[in-house]
């Protein structure tokens, strides 16, 4: 009485939906990369983080090693505290690592670049980096350029 073909096609329809969900989760949103790995958290203090957003890349030598997870203003040091989750695979950042805010391309997104120092001890969960280089604010650069070119004359 009940058609086998109909049951099969409804089943296939639902399976197709599940496959598409998996495709969207893995290929389109890259859920595995973000969710699976263990991370540890370090914080960096910047004078100015203009344009940096949460979920921005943290890279070392051009390789993405983590993500920015939080940005807040710290009244005591009058700067911005940027919290970063670094993947546990990359656990060999020396204590004197410096962090700088870089821009991908001329007008691209801001990201954080870590450059490793020479200290034998490494950063662990909860450490704070104070040796940082702030974001380049294009307006300030242009303003400074205009001022200089004005005074030359």
């Amino acid at each position, binding site marked *: 009485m009940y058609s086998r073909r109909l049951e099969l096609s409804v089943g296939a329809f639902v399976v197709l939906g599940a496959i598409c969900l998996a495709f*969207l989760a893995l290929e*389109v*949103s890259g859920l595995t*990369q973000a969710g699976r790995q263990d991370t540890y958290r370090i914080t960096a203090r910047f004078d100015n983080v203009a344009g940096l957003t949460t979920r921005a890349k943290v890279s070392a030598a051009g390789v993405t090693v983590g993500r920015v997870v939080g940005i807040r203003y710290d009244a005591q040091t009058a700067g911005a505290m940027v919290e970063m989750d670094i993947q546990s695979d990359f656990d060999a950042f020396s204590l004197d690592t410096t962090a700088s805010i870089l821009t991908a391309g001329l007008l691209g997104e801001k990201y954080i670049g870590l450059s490793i120092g020479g200290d034998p001890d490494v950063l662990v969960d909860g450490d704070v980096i104070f040796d940082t280089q702030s974001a380049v604010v294009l307006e300030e650069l242009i303003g400074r350029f205009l001022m200089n070119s004005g005074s030359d004359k």
Partner: protein
Amino acid sequence: MIERIRGLGRSTLVQVGDLGRASLLLFQAIAGRSQVGVHWRLTIDQIYAVGVLSLSIIIVSGLFIGMVLGLQGYTILADYGSEQALGQMVALSLTRELGPVVTALLFAGRAGSALTAEIGLMKATEQLASLEMIGVDPLRRVVAPRFWAGVISLPILSLIFVSVGCLGGALVGVSWLGVDAGSFWANMQASVDFWNDVFNGIIKSVVFAVVVTWIAVYQGYDLVPTSEGIARATTRTVVYASLAVLCFDFFLTAVMFGEV
């Protein structure tokens, strides 16, 4: 003048009454006890009718919308030398907006109108009355399986639409226009967040599914049982459902993505 005010009042009462009847219909159809086994089979039947049979239109339109997004996005982004962001643009516009909305609109036209016409014809030929006569609740037997089938099918169709759209965008962007495949997918994965974008899109399409199917079954159940009445109700289903989808989309977007 008095007559006009009276008319206004009367039409308001009619609208509120309609809404009340629609809510009661939905409540009676889905609430309370039901014979799960029998109704599950009926629901599967209906999923076949509204879901599986809508697959072809969803896949074809998803593919072409993805391809158009790829083409349009490329010409604009190439002006700024940032055609690597094409994957991000295609995926975000599909997951957040176009996927749920276009699927719901197509669903209203393809499946909603069919639901209304089918239930309407049952009413016009007094099948619903006969069911009641032999002690079968037509709300449970006819309306509830169709409603659930719509609510289950539309989110699945929307997922399929988005996936096919992304592949269509990749086809045009990567294979034809020569965007680097690595940066296309990497940018997409970096910018699309599963919970924020994909999951919110699914929530949207569940809401649209409830709205569209509800309108469709109500219009079918409540129509004037003549051939003209069926024609009118079918038109009303498509018009009301499309308007409701676009309107709800604005509010859902405001709630989900507004504060960003």
